[in-house]
């Protein structure tokens, strides 16, 4: 990957006696689309606000190109933000909103016009210059907010749940468009969302956060296929998460049986957790499988069926395109690489061991 542009080092933040960030270490690279993903209140916005300069960290450093900027005021940072509520200036039209940052820099009028028009074109708002921003639709306001930030040619664009207020269809469209814009302008995007699907589909890197601690950093594939702990596994889509024991490398035991797997590096007989994605489980005849049970329910979900199979120890969730009658006796199989072994999570501190 390219050069590191922002480095968060041991970042902590307290509000009163509540510790909101508990030691965040993160490297963010040039041209990277990085997403902070986590449930409400996990500290995503706070992290973003520290990078933007609206909050000062209680401890730790924010290095920008290797220089600590944690005391630099927001207006001196080469970072721009797309706010969650857009926060457009209501008394200015689209053009003046977008031109705001350039006017502050006392740029030449013609140059301002050139840049504003170019950016409006980039976000698909040609011909909207004179419009009143308060009379635009949510999606259009969103684009103005993006243009207003991008026109300043920041090295980093911060986006705090920018699609949160849009309806599902528009949201999908904007996801594609944002990704396209990022590739076109070639700068770093730090994107905040609590929608895992959004995070997986848009990002180069996903950072999963929980209670002020980073749980895992990786590509969307890593995060989905190799979750490091139960929190990540359950937050990234529906899963079967099973307490298990690692007998030795490549052999894990749960539900009375031993299964071959591909994970190594755990202690022998270490208590672990195993995640099996619902689409990785196959339903077969009972005599062909170790795990057996009865179909408890089946729901059609559009593309696949969501099936719950009750076995002796637990219910398994399975996604398949086939139909199985409730009450049917079935067997469940999965391959060694469908089993993902994770460290067992210490729920007391909310962190991974």
């Amino acid at each position: 990957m390219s050069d590191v542009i922002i480095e968060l080092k041991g970042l902590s933040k307290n509000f009163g006696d509540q510790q909101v960030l508990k030691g965040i270490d993160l490297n963010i690279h040039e041209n990277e689309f990085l997403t902070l993903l986590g449930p409400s209140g996990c500290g995503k916005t706070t992290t973003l606000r520290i990078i933007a300069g609206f909050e000062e960290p209680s401890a730790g450093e924010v290095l920008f190109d290797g220089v600590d900027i944690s005391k630099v005021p927001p207006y001196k940072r080469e970072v721009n933000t797309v706010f969650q509520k857009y926060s457009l200036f209501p008394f200015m039209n689209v053009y003046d909103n977008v031109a705001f940052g350039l006017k502050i820099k006392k740029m030449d009028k013609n140059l301002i016009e050139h840049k504003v028009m170019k950016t409006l074109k980039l976000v698909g708002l040609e011909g909207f210059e004179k419009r009143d921003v308060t009379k635009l639709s949510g999606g259009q306001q969103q684009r103005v907010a993006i243009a207003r930030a991008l026109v300043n040619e920041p090295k980093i664009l911060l986006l705090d749940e920018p699609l949160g207020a849009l309806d599902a269809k528009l949201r999908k469209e904007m996801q594609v468009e944002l990704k396209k814009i990022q590739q076109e302008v070639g700068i770093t995007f730090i994107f905040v969302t609590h929608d895992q699907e959004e995070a997986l589909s848009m990002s180069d890197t996903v950072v999963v956060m929980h209670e002020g601690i980073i749980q895992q950093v990786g590509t969307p594939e890593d995060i989905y296929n190799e979750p490091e702990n139960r929190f990540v596994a359950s937050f990234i889509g529906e899963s079967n998460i099973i307490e298990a024991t690692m007998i030795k490398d490549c052999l894990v035991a749960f539900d009375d049986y031993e299964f071959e797997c591909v994970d190594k590096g755990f202690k022998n007989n270490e208590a672990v957790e195993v995640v099996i994605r619902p689409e990785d489980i196959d339903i077969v005849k009972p005599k062909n499988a170790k795990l057996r049970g009865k179909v408890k329910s089946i729901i059609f979900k559009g593309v696949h069926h969501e099936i719950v199979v009750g076995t002796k120890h637990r219910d398994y969730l399975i996604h398949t395109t086939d139909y199985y009658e409730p009450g049917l006796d079935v067997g469940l199989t999965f391959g060694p690489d469908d089993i993902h072994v994770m460290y067992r999570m210490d729920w007391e501190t909310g962190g991974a061991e």
Partner: protein
Amino acid sequence: MKHYVKMVWPYVIWAALIVVLPLLLIILYSVTKSGNELVNIQFTLENFKRMTEPVYMAVFVKSFELGILSVVICLILGYLLAYFIAGFQEKVQNLLILLVTIPMWINTLLRTYAWISLLSDNGLINSFLEMIGLQPLNMMYTDFAVLIGLVSDLLPFMVIPIHTSLCKIDQSLIEASMDLGANRFQTFWRVTFKLSIPGVLNGVIMTFLLSISTFVIPKLLGGGQYTLIGNLIENQFISIGDWNFGSAISVILAIIILVSITLMKRIDKDEIEEE
């Protein structure tokens, strides 16, 4: 809903009785000759013509000068005070606003007498000046005294609307401005002040209205010969007894106020649409 509409009627009648009726009477007085009886009304524009006489015009000019000056001073002081108050946490803000409004609970007359005891030739300020060996100042019965009285009287009416509109400003707009490279000073002029204009206009209208029609303060702090529009009207009604001329002045004053308010509302709109 229909039900409730009926219940509004008593209030409408009440309002008509105490507001509209006197207003109509004043208008009637202003366009009739004195000594009229209801059965035999004689219309005239004489009362309005009289106002163009230099003595009266001078009073109008003086009133406007003083009114505008006190509004400007109130605006500067009031904005600073409101901005300062808006910087505190909510609880402290409420307390400070309470402090600002306390003078409003005290009768204007009493407050004005308090100023007299401070400003008069042997008042507190002069006693103090004498004590430290300086020349006493002549402050009573000057523009300065009237201005101080007016400004202190009107300040809360400026502070409260401005403070209200400052509090309503979405903090994220301030952050957006700083995010886009504007420092605190630039952010204030380009965002905060713009968003507080409705409050400023309300404050300006309110204080202008009050200052242009005041009569207690100029009478007590400006002395007997100090005449503003308010005193003129008061004199016509109370000492001279020419209700018709008094009414005409009141009508003109009301029209001037209405026109100023309309103009200012228009500025408000233009200000916001411009840029």
